[in-house]
């Protein structure tokens, strides 16, 4: 009792002095304990807020933050008329949460008719304890709709896309193909991967425990950059006819392969680039690896007689001869310790320069080339674009080869003059004729006509570079000589198209045997021509490699030229000029 203190008590009333010591001790300990607690709390607070503050806050945010990729839609590849050659369509991947499926067999039965897959195989994919399993990939949205209507427990789907090539094999060698991941692995799908693929975007948002976005919380969204559409210069219809014609000819001749190039000489646009055998872009793995390439650009070969056009054009442009210049052509010509012969053995004949072209005389061409010499000849061949990339930006292009003039051996000059000892790809070979067709002006070829961005802006390619190779007048003379080839007495009468003036040149080039290193029996039969010859709108080049039945360009390649060119003239509405073809003399004297 004595310890109790009454505040109101007057001091004087108490006998014993008040013991304040107890009070102050208790209060002090309370203060101390409280203070310690506060210090601990404060320290913890400082620890949480200041020391580990940033780390904890971001960890908490990470728990809420969810990032989702927004896939970029791959661009379309179109032909020159806007027909889709490669499109990307939405598909679904059907997935399963095995732990949620009680009766896999029944679910498998239900899915089987829609997916067109065996019920038992499906059931095995649905049995087990895995939370995620693919049941089927690339299912069409329609089918997924049917599946989702069944409301099967544990069956889900995820969005996916699939690249389809509606025309299958059409221009597959140019377009290429994509891999399982949807990225380009061949052709322009590969070369323009960055442009076609676009850049995927992403959205980051704060989500609740259920995964749903918290509506009021901020979200960061980076929109996907959609891939661009690429419009090719290829005309589907001409491409189709060219592919059919070359496939037929290759099969008929028992050849290893064949190629067709259709070009607009004025714009340099390639309207068709066909090769056979080819592949289906939808299923490239079904084809032989060697058929996946774009032979017109990836294969270089010795051009043979079609190369005589370069030689004779150079001779005419240098003023060393005219189409009428008479040249005595012996049966055998010895140059560099080697005897050169013409394909058909004969004695000396009197040919005009025009006759040399029409009869495709090797000896005549050598004699004509000697009028300008090797240095000039090599300069012209390079100007025609041989040994130089075409500028088509195609992966794996073989730019051909011509040895430097200083490295020429004694037999180099005569062989290069008639098209052996140098190599070209099919587009380069067609380009030589396009130059002649376009009055001597070489226009860089093109396969992409424009790029269409996702926002609709159209990007035109830079204007093609042009090179003056021969004069307008020389080109005109060469064209009239090319008409003699197709005309009576020429090597390619089978290439003539009734009503039209056609000019061209055959070729039967020897192929180097890869085993022996020398020339064997194998040849590349070719025909490259233009129509209408007096105002050329089209250049068509046909090459048939290693034929078993038949050998000469005039018999194998010329009919393909005729078929493709006839169709293209009609399809592009190119009427005949109506002018009569000149009849230049092939021989002289008696």
């Amino acid at each position, binding site marked *: 009792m004595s310890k109790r203190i009454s505040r109101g008590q007057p001091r004087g009333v108490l006998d014993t002095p008040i013991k304040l010591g107890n009070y102050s001790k208790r209060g002090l300990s309370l203060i101390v304990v409280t203070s310690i607690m506060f210090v601990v709390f404060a320290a913890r607070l400082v620890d949480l807020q200041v020391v580990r503050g940033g780390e904890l806050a971001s960890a908490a945010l990470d728990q809420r933050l969810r990032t989702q990729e927004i896939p970029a839609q791959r661009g379309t590849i179109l032909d020159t008329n806007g027909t889709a050659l490669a499109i990307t369509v939405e598909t679904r991947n059907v997935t399963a949460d095995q732990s949620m499926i009680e009766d896999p067999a029944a679910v498998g039965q239900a899915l089987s008719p829609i997916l067109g897959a065996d019920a038992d195989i499906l059931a095995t994919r649905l049995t087990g304890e895995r939370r995620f399993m693919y049941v089927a990939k690339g299912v069409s949205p329609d089918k997924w709709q049917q599946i989702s209507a069944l409301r099967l427990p544990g069956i889900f789907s995820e969005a996916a896309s699939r690249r389809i090539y509606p025309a299958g094999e059409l221009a597959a060698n140019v377009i290429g193909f994509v891999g399982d991941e949807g990225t380009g692995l061949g052709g322009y799908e590969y070369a323009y991967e960055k442009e076609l693929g676009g850049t995927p975007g992403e959205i980051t948002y704060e989500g609740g425990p259920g995964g749903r976005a918290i509506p009021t919380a901020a979200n960061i969204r980076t929109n996907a950059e959609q891939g661009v559409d690429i419009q090719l210069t290829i005309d589907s219809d001409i491409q189709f006819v060219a592919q059919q014609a070359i496939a037929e000819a290759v099969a008929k001749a028992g050849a290893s392969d064949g190629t067709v190039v259709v070009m607009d000489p004025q714009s340099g646009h390639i309207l068709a680039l066909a090769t056979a055998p080819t592949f289906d872009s939808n299923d490239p793995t079904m084809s032989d690896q060697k058929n996946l390439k774009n032979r017109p650009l990836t294969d270089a070969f010795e051009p043979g007689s079609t190369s005589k056009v370069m030689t004779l054009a150079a001779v005419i442009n240098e003023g060393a001869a005219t189409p009428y210049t008479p040249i005595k052509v012996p049966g055998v010509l010895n140059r560099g310790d080697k005897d050169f012969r013409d394909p058909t053995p004969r004695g000396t004949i009197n040919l005009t320069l025009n006759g040399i072209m029409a009869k495709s005389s090797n000896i005549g061409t050598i004699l004509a080339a000697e009028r300008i010499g090797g240095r000039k000849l090599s300069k012209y061949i390079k100007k025609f674009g041989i040994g130089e990339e075409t500028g088509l930006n195609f992966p794996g292009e073989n730019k051909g080869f011509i040895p430097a003039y200083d490295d020429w051996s004694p037999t180099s000059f005569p062989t290069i003059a008639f098209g052996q000892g140098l190599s070209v790809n099919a587009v380069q070979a067609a380009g030589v004729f396009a130059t002649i067709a376009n009055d001597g002006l070489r226009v860089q070829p093109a396969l992409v006509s424009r790029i269409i961005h996702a926002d609709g802006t159209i990007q035109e390619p830079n204007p093609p570079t042009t090179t003056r190779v021969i004069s307008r007048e020389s080109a005109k003379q060469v064209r009239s000589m090319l008409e003699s080839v197709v005309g009576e007495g020429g090597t390619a009468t089978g290439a003539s198209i009734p009503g039209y003036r056609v000019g061209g040149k055959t070729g039967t080039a020897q192929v180097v045997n890869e085993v022996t290193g020398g020339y064997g029996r194998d040849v590349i039969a070719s025909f490259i021509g233009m129509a209408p010859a007096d105002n050329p709108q089209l250049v068509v080049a046909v090459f048939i490699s290693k034929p078993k039945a038949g050998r000469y360009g005039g018999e194998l390649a010329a009919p393909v030229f005729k078929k493709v060119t*006839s169709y293209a*003239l009609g399809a592009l509405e190119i009427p005949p000029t109506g002018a009569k073809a000149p009849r230049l003399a092939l021989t002289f004297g008696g």
Partner: protein
Amino acid sequence: MSAAPKLEFSEITETPEQTVTEYATKGVRKSMRANLRLVSPMRVQKASNGMFVLIVLGALGIGMLGILLINTSLAQGAFTLGELRSQYGELARTEATLTEEVAALSAPEALENQARGLGMVPSSSPAFIRIPDGTVLGKPKPAKGAAIPTPADLTAGEGAEMAVAGEQPGAPGVGYDPAAADAQANEEAQTAGAGQKENKKVTGVWSEPIVIEAKVVSENALLDAVSVQ
């Protein structure tokens, strides 16, 4: 107690021209002087407790109602969003399906098959008719009809039977005999060709080189590709 202030006051008022204010702001420029005056002591108003409770309750109520409204509108928005999303998904699916279908149908191979199915064959020689004077440009030839597959369902015997029965085929289809049609077309084309040649000689156009700009042709649609058959 009261003497001292009086004394002080009287001290201040010793200069009668000076007011209290003037004294306080002595040395300050006239224009800067604040207009000071004496005020009565502040009257403290006591708010009633009942009023305060009401205000707080009101604020609370408004807040609750606001939250309710916001939540409702968010839920509504979510519903609309979900609905539009599924609608968008459905339309996108339809579009994808249709795009695929159109692309497949417009592929050259599919078109060719359809054309052949209708009994058409590719033309082997391009020719044009110039509309103003009817000149034929190019040398039209009848296309070879061997490739027509339509009447494949019919054997030659069946076709002959129908012909005997007096059924004249108007269009490729039942009873259509490709060989006979070819022969007929051939004949017609040859007659037509001969007629055209004569015509040309009369007008004298053909003997002269005709310069036709391809541009003009397409712009004026003077020429049209003609099927020779």
